[in-house]
């Protein structure tokens, strides 16, 4: 209540809208049959930073998806090594021929970054999907059933928290062997506890709502109540976590690849490229700068978008 009053005042003041996109009149906004999602989207659109972040993510994703169509023609093969000319072509600084320079084997770094985006995004998205599926299931059961289930599952989450993250990941990968899918599984297995915790808290608060009792009073089964009535209402905060999780997964994949435990070195990945640069950091700083920049901007974009989504889904921030 207390923070509603001032925000309503500002909404009525025409000065505040100056410079920003013209605001919808409050009545019109409320009258137009809005759902939570439409409402969130409307608020997200006003967040410039989040939009830029989303634009960047879409840009990177599009480049990664369509790479095969144009990249080989323009930039050559990201993995091909011409052994006869390596000496002349390796470790060249950025030029018009190679915008981001070349690496020690004479491969175009821009090309490798583009193909690296494929691996990095694919791994991140798959890992987050795995993390979210595990986290949602476990969080829902813990939150909805409570009691014994809750205690056991949450203690399990605590145990996962207590493990040194990177060490655990290395052990898991050492057991399963390297490979794109195994990296996804590892990140998923290590990441579910945070998702589960947040979803559990969300479920706990949602299940106290009277419409949950009402659904049970209609004769809906426990699973139906959990997935049709509690789930959709508790999911909004998870969108935020999943978005930020993609950023975190890119970082983890990069770290694992850097340590040589992630994506096999033959396949270009951002972390792997950073691994290769270790001994040339001083002679060829561009080899480090560009993959690093790719990781930085993409992870930042996911975090900023996550931030924007959190604000967009937060009803208490209603203007």
């Amino acid at each position, binding site marked *: 209540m207390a923070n509603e009053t001032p925000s309503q005042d500002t909404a009525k003041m025409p000065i505040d809208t100056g410079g920003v996109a013209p605001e919808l009149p409050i009545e019109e906004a409320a009258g137009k*049959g809005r*759902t*939570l999602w439409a409402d969130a989207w409307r608020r997200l659109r006003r967040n410039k930073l989040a939009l830029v972040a989303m634009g960047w993510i879409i840009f990177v994703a599009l480049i990664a998806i369509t790479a095969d169509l144009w990249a080989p023609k323009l930039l050559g093969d990201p993995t091909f090594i011409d052994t006869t000319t390596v000496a002349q072509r390796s470790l060249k600084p950025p030029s018009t021929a190679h915008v981001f320079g070349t690496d020690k084997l004479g491969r175009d770094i821009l090309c490798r970054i583009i193909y690296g985006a494929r691996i990095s995004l694919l791994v991140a998205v798959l890992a987050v999907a795995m993390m979210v599926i595990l986290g949602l299931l476990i969080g829902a059961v813990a939150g909805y059933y409570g*009691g014994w289930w809750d205690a056991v599952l949450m203690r399990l989450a605590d145990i996962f928290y207590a493990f040194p993250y990177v060490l655990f990941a290395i052990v898991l990968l050492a057991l399963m062997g390297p490979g794109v899918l195994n990296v996804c599984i590892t990140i998923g297995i290590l990441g579910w506890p945070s998702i589960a915790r947040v979803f559990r808290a969300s479920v706990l608060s949602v299940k106290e*709502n*009277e*419409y949950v*009792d*009402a*659904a*049970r*009073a*209609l*004769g*809906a*089964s426990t699973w139906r109540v959990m997935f049709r*009535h509690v789930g*959709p*209402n508790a999911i909004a905060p998870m969108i935020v976590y999943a978005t930020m999780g993609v950023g975190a997964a890119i970082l983890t994949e990069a770290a694992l690849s850097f340590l040589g435990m992630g994506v096999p070195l033959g396949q270009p990945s951002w972390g792997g490229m950073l691994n290769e640069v270790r001994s040339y950091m001083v002679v060829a700083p561009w080899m480090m700068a560009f993959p690093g920049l790719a990781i930085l901007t993409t992870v930042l974009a996911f975090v900023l978008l996550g931030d924007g989504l959190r604000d967009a889904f937060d009803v208490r921030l209603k203007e």
Partner: protein
Amino acid sequence: MVPVLEVDDLHMHFFTRDGVVKAVDGVSFTLEARKTLGVVGESGSGKSVTALSVMRLIPEPPGKVVSGDIRFKGESILAMNERDQRKLRGNRIAMIFQDPMTSLNPVYRIGKQIAEPLRLHKGLSKKEAWVAAAELLDRVGIPEAEKRAKDYPHEFSGGMRQRAMIAMALACGPDVLIADEPTTALDVTIQAQILELMQEIQARTESAIIMITHDLGVVADMADHVLVMYAGKAVEFGTADEVFYNPLHPYTWGLLESLPRHDVDEKGQLCPISGQPPSLINLPEGCAFQPRCQYAREACQRRLPGLVEIERGHLSACLFSGDKQFLAESPRCAYGRAQE
């Protein structure tokens, strides 16, 4: 004829860390088709827990039916497995909740929510259920029902939402409709409309209604029988006329006296029942109402009165309800005594 619903000496206790909360501690009533039972009592007297027990919506643990039985058309609900109970819920026994603002799911369209019991119990297809839902909305008096069925709950007003809730409860044509304070969250004019709607629907269908309320006016309006509850126990049960015009239990006297009266011109003070309802963990010895009872005698502290039939079909749980002299003391005019 077998009554549609029988609650037989129900004891629903909650086992908490602080002790056993005897939320419902010996409640019995029977409900026949087309009849309305009004359940009245203060907050915490066990009205809602009784209703939720009938629906089997009390989480166990911490709740547990210690003893007693609930029978639907002669068959024990407590003995049924979860699947059979589900087949009753929303189908044969439906419930309307107190706060229409929170009892509709915000993420689904109204029509879809009304269609849900039809899909669950009648096996209708999505389309059939949607058409039926629009018809139900129309029947509960929502204008342009077909169009409004596409609305989300937040686009409905409080009164309309309660109508939607009623439509949902009525979807499968239940034998018993439990309304847990259906009008408490609504303003007075809407209250009257909702009650009228419920009466209208009862006249058209065979439904029996359990009307839980602390509004004696609502009970007087609607109920055939009245159950007065105090501290988890039934203290008086009888026809509405008997309970209102010839109340036997001092608690009922207190409730009736605490009503504002518009037939008295003088501006007097209201006459509330003094004190607080007792903690359900440590009930006082003897009669639970005894510490607050103006008419309590020494015996009340020692003996726990049972619910006894005083007149035909009129039961009371007071040691002295059978005592003509005691009943003669019952207040005739609340304002007269307040001025003493």
